[in-house]
């Protein structure tokens, strides 16, 4: 069998101590494969965001191990984890997704600049990414002059432009109306289908789940069901 893109083994995450301790993750084992379009669902407090943070190298587990493309994260320094996020992971958050002082194009270019991509290539790739998400002609607009849906599209373009191994999205549609939600999900599905990009989306929105090929259900920090099993 092909090696998994992401593997989580025995992941636990405990917040607080003693009687106040909360087990946000309680022994999670999970493999994410290349090309997956997975939704991570469950009620609030089920551990979706915590698990996405572990996979995204934003937080460290109390115990257990996450590996991305065979590399264990527990041994890496903060700077190395920053590098890993920059090169291999794209993020889409619910809010505060963009740098407000930069234009749409500059927001997308930002990641490429951190990757030391040359100016001409950077401009070309960022423009192409904005075209891809349907924002042609809006390159010079600041986020504050754009709708919530358009801002999330910029976030998708930024997440994709660095050609990451995986895109993690945490409640990407929480602030969007149903039309915009449908458009965004259609966009991400197409990118997965046509370009083979791996998505893991944390959500409890049924409209999002409807687009997923793989559905992972979490309850109380554990994986309750996984349509891949």
């Amino acid at each position, binding site marked *: 069998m092909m090696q998994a893109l992401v593997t989580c083994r025995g992941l636990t995450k405990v917040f607080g101590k003693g009687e106040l301790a909360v087990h946000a993750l309680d022994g999670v084992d999970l493999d994410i494969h290349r090309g997956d379009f997975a939704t991570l669902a469950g009620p609030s407090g089920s551990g979706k965001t915590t698990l996405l943070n572990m996979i995204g190298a934003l937080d460290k587990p109390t115990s257990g191990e996450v590996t991305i493309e065979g590399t264990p994260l527990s041994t890496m320094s*903060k700077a190395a984890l920053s590098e890993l996020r920059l090169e291999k992971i794209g993020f889409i958050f619910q809010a505060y997704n963009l740098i407000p002082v930069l234009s749409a194009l500059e927001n997308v270019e930002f990641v490429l600049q951190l990757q030391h991509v040359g100016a001409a290539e950077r401009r070309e790739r960022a423009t192409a990414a904005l075209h891809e998400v349907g924002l042609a002609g809006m390159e010079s607009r600041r986020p504050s002059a754009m709708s919530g849906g358009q801002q999330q599209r910029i976030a998708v373009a930024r997440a994709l432009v660095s050609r990451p191994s995986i895109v993690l999205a945490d409640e990407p549609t929480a602030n969007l109306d149903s039309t915009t939600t449908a458009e965004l999900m259609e966009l991400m599905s197409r990118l997965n289908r046509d370009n083979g990009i791996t998505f893991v989306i944390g959500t409890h929105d049924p409209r999002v789940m409807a687009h997923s090929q793989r559905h992972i259900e979490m309850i109380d920090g554990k994986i309750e069901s996984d349509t891949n099993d």
Partner: protein
Amino acid sequence: MNNFGILRTIAWRNLWRNPKRTLITLIVVTVGLWSILAFSMLLNAWAESSRQNALGLLIGQGQIHAAGYMDDPNIDHLMPPPDGALRDVLDSDGVAHWVARLQLPGVVQSEYKTLPITILGVDPAGEREISLVPDKIVEGRYLNGLDDDAVIIGANLAKRLKTTLGRRIILMSTGADGYLEEYSFDIVGIFDADQGFEDSYVFTGRSLLQEYMGLDDEIAQISFVLPDESGLPAMIDTLKAAAPDLDIRDWKQVSVMAAAMNSAMKSIIYIWLGIMIIMMSIGIINTQLMAVFERTQEFGLIRAIGLKPRMVLWLVTLESALLMAVGMVLGVILAVLTYFGFQGGLDLSGFSRAMEAIGSGQVLYPQFAPADFVIYPVLIWVIGVLVALWPAYRAQKISPVEAMRHAT
């Protein structure tokens, strides 16, 4: 554009996200630097005016005395008029003017009062070249010659003695034979200088005073000025070589008071500099801490995207550095404009009494010290950037997970 380039763009634009806050800090920094430079120019002008006044009245740029005179200025420590090698140096192009004086401690007496003073026997023609006193006669005339049998006294001394122009006073001092000599003189002129000077000196013709004191041609001091003051240390050395037995000093050694005033001015500037730096530091820390606090989610986002913690530190520090740099440029421009605005002199004749009390002239000419316009801005900029490291460090410590949790 490298990482620094994009950070610079973000930093610059962030400054203008909250224009009001940025402008307030900018005003503090700009006005702070301007005030330091303007204050420095004005204090230097004051220091220079006071120095020129003090030196111009009597001290000159340097003085020569017989050994022991400075410690015990009486008739036992006099010297002959300059001759030989010393005279050659004094008459050379290296010295613009010099005068010989007989200066003795004494007492002045009017019909009403007796006061201690210093009696100066001068060469009126020479004094006109070197001293401001001849120009400060407000009533009557200056002395006419070496044997002018008259005195000029200060306005305040005349007031204290309850005497006036045209009246007679008696001068007393110890003569060469050790006995008290006393002679009466007509007051032919009243001069106006600072009060301390007016109270201390009485002027008469040198030859006459020598005669009355039973002296031949002995003198107490030679005062000199150079065509260019920068040559003073070298001239002092030359004079010392020409007259190794005499006590030769520059103005700082002659008048410790004038020298102390000069260094006190510098201390005042440094104290002001310190106050301004503290105010500006508080402004910068406050601005940047507020900005960091407001942008917690944003820092979380850029850390999540892949910006290293060190780069966040750079970003915030860069914002402070840019803000300070703009303030420094504006402050320098403002100070230069101030300099040119008052280049013709700042007329403070409305405060003439106060100016006299501080030993200054009534018109101050701002002193442009190019080094100050480099050193102070650079110093303030460096300190501003250093204090901004604290908010920057706080920004660097923001955890992306914590920041993003606040966002949702």
